[in-house]
């Protein structure tokens, strides 16, 4: 393999790495201004995004470059590689890069006096680099290591402010639970290696899972244990109940821009890892179930995994929604809402068909914008002196109509109101579950009921923002009563970077909601490609 044919497909990663190096070089040169370092991060993610979009074959960008044919070879004629470029992997690369791009764009408006810009952007880019590698992983070890790259970077990101004890505590918690789950994941991978003799995901797919080799009877337990550990290990990343407890504290304690990155970016990586790891066993059994020699009397692996995932999915969305309903703080409410959204997304891999994967991918795409945007907006609003409680947002819709409307749009999209991207993604996802029939229909119904439940707490925020008056400033004793004006918000907006990021979010929410076909078509064909790839 010569260098160019190796480097070609990894151009986006290389761009990011160059960005990281440049940022740290500037740090050494004492050029640490937020704007400068931030623009490097934005530029790096932007370039990488352009390359990924070109890889996906969107015509305006296709001239830019095309992937070498060898890197998308689904026949694996030259043996199983560590990485493989599937269309869905590229879609996820694009999603990750979009999330990072939004966060770094918004962070351009961080207060000037806040320090640590190079650390922040460098870690952000490193975490994104790990995520891009996850998206193209073809081997379990490669996948888990790539996840580790991201994890290490995010632990540091959560605690980078150093002086804030809350964020330090959050970082510590995340690190301990993260280390535990990494151990579990690797243990699971080793068990799978024991069962299959390989850790390559596509090789596993190709192997007859249940009856290859001698002593077929001993395989299922080992395989089940292996997948069980992997599910638990990855569930930490994807914030599935009951492995979610860290997420709320961390989302709450971390600097809000970092929270936006965690909810919009790194969590999605965990979900895509689920896709990668579990599609093979689920799909494999599904495809052989109709009259091939694999339908033995032994436990069918796919359905067992599916039922387990279905339970996790329903548990996650229900617990997330119910607890979100009870929250009084905006960030914790959004955190729980984000957990419940992970439950919806898990439906995609549980069902395991191409339309369902497409629906889940679209839901993830939507969530990057809705939830990432919401956290970015929360970060901006707190700079105006709005407190952490939902009640502190009283009257914001009338005092700052632009921010109010943008936030309302994000909430409406999360609730799945038509003409927003959230509606389209839920529609595609749930209808795919219904199409798959069987008990998946109940999954869709559980999802619908949960969406209905979630409307309550979104609507509560809307009511607070638009229909309630802000409490007047507490008057000093002895003043004449009559000054019932709400406190004046500090002048000025979010700053250009944050305003641009939020504007972009709003545009995407509405544009894809009104005209979803372009994104939907790309995601659908990518999901189909992913399902067929290497099979």
């Amino acid at each position, binding site marked *: 393999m010569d260098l160019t044919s190796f480097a070609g497909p990894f151009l986006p990663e290389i761009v990011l790495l160059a960005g990281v190096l440049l940022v740290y070089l500037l740090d050494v040169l004492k050029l640490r201004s937020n704007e400068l370092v931030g623009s490097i991060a934005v530029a790096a993610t932007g370039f990488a995004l352009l390359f990924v979009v070109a890889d996906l074959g969107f015509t305006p960008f296709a001239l830019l470059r095309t992937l070498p044919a060898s890197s998308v070879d689904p026949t694996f004629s030259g043996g199983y590689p560590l990485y493989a470029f599937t269309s869905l992997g590229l879609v996820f690369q694009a999603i990750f890069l979009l999330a990072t791009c939004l966060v770094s764009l918004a962070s351009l408006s961080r207060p000037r006096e806040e320090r640590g810009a190079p650390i922040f952007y460098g870690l952000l880019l490193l975490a994104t680099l790990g995520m891009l590698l996850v998206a193209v992983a073809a081997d379990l070890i490669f996948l888990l290591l790539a996840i580790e790259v991201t994890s290490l970077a995010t632990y540091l990101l959560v605690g980078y402010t150093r002086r804030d004890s809350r964020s330090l*505590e959050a970082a*510590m*918690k995340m690190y*301990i*639970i993260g280390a*535990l*789950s990494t151990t*579990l994941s690797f243990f699971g991978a080793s068990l799978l290696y024991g069962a299959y003799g390989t850790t390559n995901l596509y090789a596993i797919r190709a192997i007859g899972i249940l009856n290859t080799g001698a002593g077929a009877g001993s395989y299922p*337990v080992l395989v*089940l*244990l292996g997948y*069980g*550990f992997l*599910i*638990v290990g990855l*569930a*930490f990343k994807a914030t599935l109940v*009951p*492995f979610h*407890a*860290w997420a*709320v*504290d961390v989302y709450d304690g971390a600097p809000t821009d970092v929270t936006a990155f965690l909810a919009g970016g790194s969590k999605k990586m965990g979900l895509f890892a689920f896709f990668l790891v579990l599609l093979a066993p689920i799909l494999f059994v*599904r495809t052989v*179930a109709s009259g091939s020699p694999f339908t033995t009397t032994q*436990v*069918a692996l*796919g*359905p*067992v*995994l*599916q*039922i*387990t995932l279905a*339970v*996790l999915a329903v548990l996650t969305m229900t617990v997330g929604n119910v607890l979100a*309903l*009870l929250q009084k703080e905006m960030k914790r409410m959004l955190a729980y809402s984000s957990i419940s959204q992970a439950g919806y997304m898990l439906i995609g891999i549980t*069902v395991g*068909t*191409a*339309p369902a994967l497409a629906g889940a991918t679209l839901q993830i795409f939507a969530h990057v914008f809705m939830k990432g945007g919401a956290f970015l907006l929360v970060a901006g609003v707190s700079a105006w002196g709005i407190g952490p409680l939902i009640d502190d947002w009283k009257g914001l819709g009338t005092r700052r109509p632009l921010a109010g409307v943008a936030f309302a749009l994000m909430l409406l999209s999360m609730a799945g109101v038509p003409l927003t991207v959230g509606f*389209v993604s839920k*529609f*595609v996802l749930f*209808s*795919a579950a*219904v*199409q*798959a*029939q*069987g*008990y*998946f229909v109940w999954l869709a119904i559980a999802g619908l009921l949960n969406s209905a439940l979630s409307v309550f707490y979104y609507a509560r925020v809307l009511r607070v923002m638009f229909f309630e008056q802000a409490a007047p400033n507490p008057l000093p004793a002895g003043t004449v009563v009559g000054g019932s004006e709400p406190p004046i918000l500090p002048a000025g907006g979010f700053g250009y970077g944050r305003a641009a990021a939020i504007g972009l979010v709003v545009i995407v929410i509405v544009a894809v909601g009104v*005209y*979803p*076909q372009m994104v*939907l078509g790309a995601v*659908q064909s990518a999901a*189909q490609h992913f399902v067929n790839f290497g099979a």
Partner: protein
Amino acid sequence: MTAFVVVGLAGTRLKRLEWGGWVAVGFAGAALIVGVLVAAGAMLDPGRYTNVQYTWFQLPPSPGTFPNGFELVVGTLVDPISALMLLVVTVVGFLVMLYSIEYMHHDRGLPRYYAELSLFLAAMTGLVISNNLFEFFLFWELVGLCSYFLIGFYYEKPSASSAAKEAFLVTRVGDVMFLLGIFLYFYNYRFAGPAGSGGWAANGFVFVNGSQPFLAGTMGGNSTLLTVAGIMILGGAAGKSAQFPLHVWLPDAMEGPTTVSALIHAATMVAAGVYLLAVTSLFLGFTATDQLLIVAIGGITTFFAATMAVVHPDIKRVIAYSTISQLGYMVLAVGAGFAMVGLFHLFTHAFFKALLFLSAGAVIHAVGTQDLFKMGGLRKTMKITATAFAIGGLALAGIPPFAGFWSKDDILGSVYAQLGAHPAYWPFFILAVAGVFLTAYYIFRAWFLAFSGDRPRDPTLPHAHDPTWRMTVPLVTLSALAVGAGFLIFWPNFQGLLLNGAGVAGIPPTYGTTDLLLSAMSVLLGGAGIALAWYLWGNGKVFVLPESSAVQPVRKLLLNRYYMKAGYDWIGAKGVYSIARAADFFDQFVIDGTVHGFERMFAAFSDRLRRIQSGVVSDYAAYVVGGLIAVFVLLLFVAPYLVAKVGGG
């Protein structure tokens, strides 16, 4: 055509201006020009269908549910049928806007009025040019919403806001049925479609495929299901077009401004139900059971609404009942398989009914009351209005050569020709014919009461005079249309259209075979009705039914609208209110209780709560391990058991 909708919407944005009314008129005028041009284009070349659409989103095929995939489109369709409706909407819409300038100038809240009216016009045009059922439904809801707003325009009046609510609720019953109907059709046709088209669902429920009428009779399906779907569509149409038994809201909707009554509750929105039936009948087809049911609803409504109009003292409500009754004729025609004949009556009716409403509005504007028994002798001071009302009345009564004659005669003739094949239509045909007599009687009773005689019966009425040109121009224009619109039937293109519509539903085109005897009879009946009205009420007379008369109970029954409204109110008060109370109880005790219960539960275990979510990392690790054990229990024991039991996904 999309630009057309945009024009309407842009209109709604500009209403804050001082000259908002004129701006709205301008936009309505622009819409009129575009509408007439487009409609003329479509009508001059009957073979032409302009279908513009783009895909909103689509799902790939899946073997079980959508073998051909599923697609939702947004599009506009201009064919002769929608052109006819377009003409009605834009012409009446423009004239009513113009009329509003003077009629409404004393009222407050005019920006709201013009904004809502413009929004209504935009939505209504959107509705008639929708090319698929989902889009149709969307606009359908939008016009319903505008209607709700406009009925409640005088929201300070309790009767107005309660009428608005009533209209909203009653039509909602129909809307829910309509939506169910769409789903049933979708369920039934998801596999099927005309050859090569990939299925109805795959094509986004579009009405037309090229110039071919879609689906009619060519596709199979479960006939029971189709019948139920048809009944649901009928329910939707009955709600919107105020058909029995969902007619109660329309007379009360007269609480809105008269202009609104003319535009929305006479000419356009209420006709949307008929349009829906016609479109469904043309492109989907009804089963024989559905047809009989539709004919029955149409016939019954025609007669019953007419009887209620006979006794009412309020000039607007007489016309409102008349609208219900006339819509019944259209429904009757559609049910008998003559969708286009029904639409022809819709076309002529829109003009003469708007004319009647606007003349009534001129009277109300001049004398300040709606009570017929206080008016009288207005003929002398309001010459134009009196003539206009008379022309509208003659058209309504079906006296040749006025527009109503041609279309009503067509309906009766067409249904008559079907009686041989469908004897079950007989009773409803007789009701419809009897309706002709009643129609002529009640409308001329109203005319004589208001206009004949020497002076108003209530001497305190202000001195009345004809309005200015802003109100008379619409009156004169509509009068001309009420005289002339019926002659359209002599235009070969239009005849072809009528034939085409009849032929589609699989029924021999019979509209042309109007029975001369039948025509003569209906004209005679109309004449008799007018004569009776003159005999009882003419020349300022007031016919007082003796208290001892045997007919007195009938009059009471009619005045009380057969007690249906009271019955609904009773059901509403007892039934719905209890449901509402139950829901309130549920809300207060179950939902709030659950939420508070959770809170209390958490509060009670606040120590543990703090431990759960506020920090101790070893606990989180314990959850992970606990979760791990739970996952293994699931994976190793529960799931295999379930898979063995059910057979897996």
